[in-house]
């Protein structure tokens, strides 16, 4: 992968996020296990209060387990379904170097899906069960994926804005109280920051290019800004899962805090790029020490989450079709393994634990 290629074009502000990932990893390694005296709820509370990590074999409340499964599965699905809008441009990338970078990026996303499904499997559900839940609409993926990538500039804007937003969110998840999730996030964040950087770089070249390229870049930023802002979820007072997730230290900051952090990071980066963020109300507020901005249209987010975005049906149709088209291949692999090795070679076929299933929120 061409990480070194882009070393010179680090977007301003990104070092800070990389440092936060490093610090979270140091703390993860140092998070010593307490002496195990307490059992059940008390043992769990001691882990959370003491900033230790909860591990798969520890007792945990059913709601904690179910909430984590929901969140990690949604994250894994977002990586996997999120490959679609970007793969849309792999075959048309306008230079071989950009083609290689984009292909490597989409490949990373498949890899992130694998780490995250594995992290969720430690909670007693199988990948197959999670994929069924996705295909049947019982589990979700991030809403921005339901918007189309219409021009080559969308590849840059999508990575700069939505991967940028993902990094802001995920850096904080490196400190999640659940050990396997926190460790998966450290790995994911390192690669996401490369994704963000390549998007920034692709867009920078366009924004300094021909008039047609500049127009393409601005148009893409205009279309991706609000889907990226909406990625942090509804405002805290409208969010269904926020309070409990924060008490359990699965999540460390509110949706609004993270959204603000993202806006503050994007403004100077947009200046370097020479693109305009599509919000006339966007300005520095010295009193707050933050930028004021116009919130996303929450009705639109609700419609997209409910399945009425421009690409929801297309994305899910593609996912289901690929899964169905691949069934004969997976069956062949299982049959071959049974003939030659006395059993299936992939252990992904085991079923989810009933307790974990019952605990899932509707």
């Amino acid at each position, binding site marked *: *992968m061409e990480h070194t290629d882009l070393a010179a074009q680090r977007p301003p502000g990104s070092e800070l996020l990389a440092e936060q990932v490093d610090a979270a990893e140091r703390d993860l390694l140092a998070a010593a296990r307490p002496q195990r005296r307490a059992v059940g709820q008390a043992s769990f509370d001691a882990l959370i209060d003491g900033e230790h990590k909860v591990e798969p074999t520890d007792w945990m409340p059913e709601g904690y387990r179910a909430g984590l499964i929901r969140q990690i599965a949604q994250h894994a699905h977002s990586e*996997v379904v999120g*490959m*679609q809008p970007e*793969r849309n441009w*792999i*075959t*048309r*990338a*306008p*230079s*071989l*170097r*950009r*083609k*290689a970078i984009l*292909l*490597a990026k*989409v*490949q990373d996303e*498949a*890899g992130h*899906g*694998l780490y995250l*499904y594995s992290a969720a499997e430690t909670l007693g559900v199988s*990948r197959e069960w999670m994929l069924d839940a996705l295909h049947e609409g019982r589990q979700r993926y991030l809403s921005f994926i339901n918007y189309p990538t219409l021009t*080559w500039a969308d590849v840059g804007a999508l990575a700069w804005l939505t991967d940028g937003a993902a990094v802001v969110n995920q850096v904080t998840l490196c400190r999640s109280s659940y050990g396997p999730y926190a460790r998966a996030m450290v790995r994911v964040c390192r690669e996401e920051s490369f994704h963000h950087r390549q998007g920034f770089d*692709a867009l920078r*070249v366009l924004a300094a*290019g*021909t008039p*047609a*390229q500049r127009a393409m870049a601005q148009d893409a930023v205009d279309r991706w800004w609000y889907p990226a802002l909406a990625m942090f979820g509804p405002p805290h007072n409208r969010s269904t899962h926020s309070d409990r997730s924060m008490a359990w230290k699965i999540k460390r900051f509110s949706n609004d805090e993270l959204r603000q952090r993202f806006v503050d990071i994007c403004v100077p980066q947009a200046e370097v790029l020479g693109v305009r963020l599509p919000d006339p109300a966007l300005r520095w507020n010295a009193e707050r020490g933050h930028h004021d901005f116009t919130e996303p249209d929450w009705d639109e987010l609700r419609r997209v989450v409910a399945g009425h975005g421009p690409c929801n049906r297309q994305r899910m149709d*593609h996912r289901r079709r*690929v899964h169905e*088209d*691949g*069934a*004969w*291949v*997976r*069956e*062949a*692999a299982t*049959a*071959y*393994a049974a*003939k*030659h090795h006395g059993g299936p070679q992939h252990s992904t076929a085991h079923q989810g634990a009933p307790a974990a299933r019952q605990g899932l929120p509707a």
Partner: protein
Amino acid sequence: MTRFDSVLRLGDDALVAAQRMAHWCACAPQLEEDVALANIALDLLGQARALLTYAGGIEGAGRDEDRLAYQRDEREFTNALLVELPDADFAVAVVKLLFFATYQNLLYQRLATGADTTLAGIAGKAVKETKYHVEHATRWTLRLGDGTVESRRRAQAAVDGLWPFTHELFEPDPLAPVDPAGLREPWAALVRPVLTRATLVVPDDDWRPTGGRVGLHTEGFGYLLGEMQSVHRAHPGARW
């Protein structure tokens, strides 16, 4: 047949194979395979970039990898027909990879010890990559051929459809750094036992389609190029 032509031919093979393989990204039967096929496509694309850059240098007319990839028409591409054939299903992708990667691996092994040191350097890296491609394709050929009734049917159909196109890979070219004609026997010695272990049958050699090396391609190839070149050609002179 100049030195430029022979390097260009290698680059075109790798580029067109990469373009076809990249289609599998987000379309593979399981996530592990999305990762693996994207990896193979990236290797092929890396080979293509090195080879086209080298070809452009030999030619000395100022054509870089992108000029060669994006600004030639169907009749100017010299890849073998095998790599441009569409992947109707996963079995076609796997069997095509088995045939092509085995050929590439044998060729690169010889180029890696050849007199042309630049080509030897490119080939040296590609030997390791194509070794993995052959292993991956071999494992899947066995699983598909010796898996279920359905997978065997599809794998056999892929072998029947692709085998005739393998002959073109080995057409004699005495002026090339390595004459491919000498590779047919070692290639068959590697590929046939895999097919046999996979319970697959090699079809009769009664049809030997050819033409790619002189720019006579299949009808589908124009669409592949049209898609690949569309953005680049819409913005003449732009940087990316």
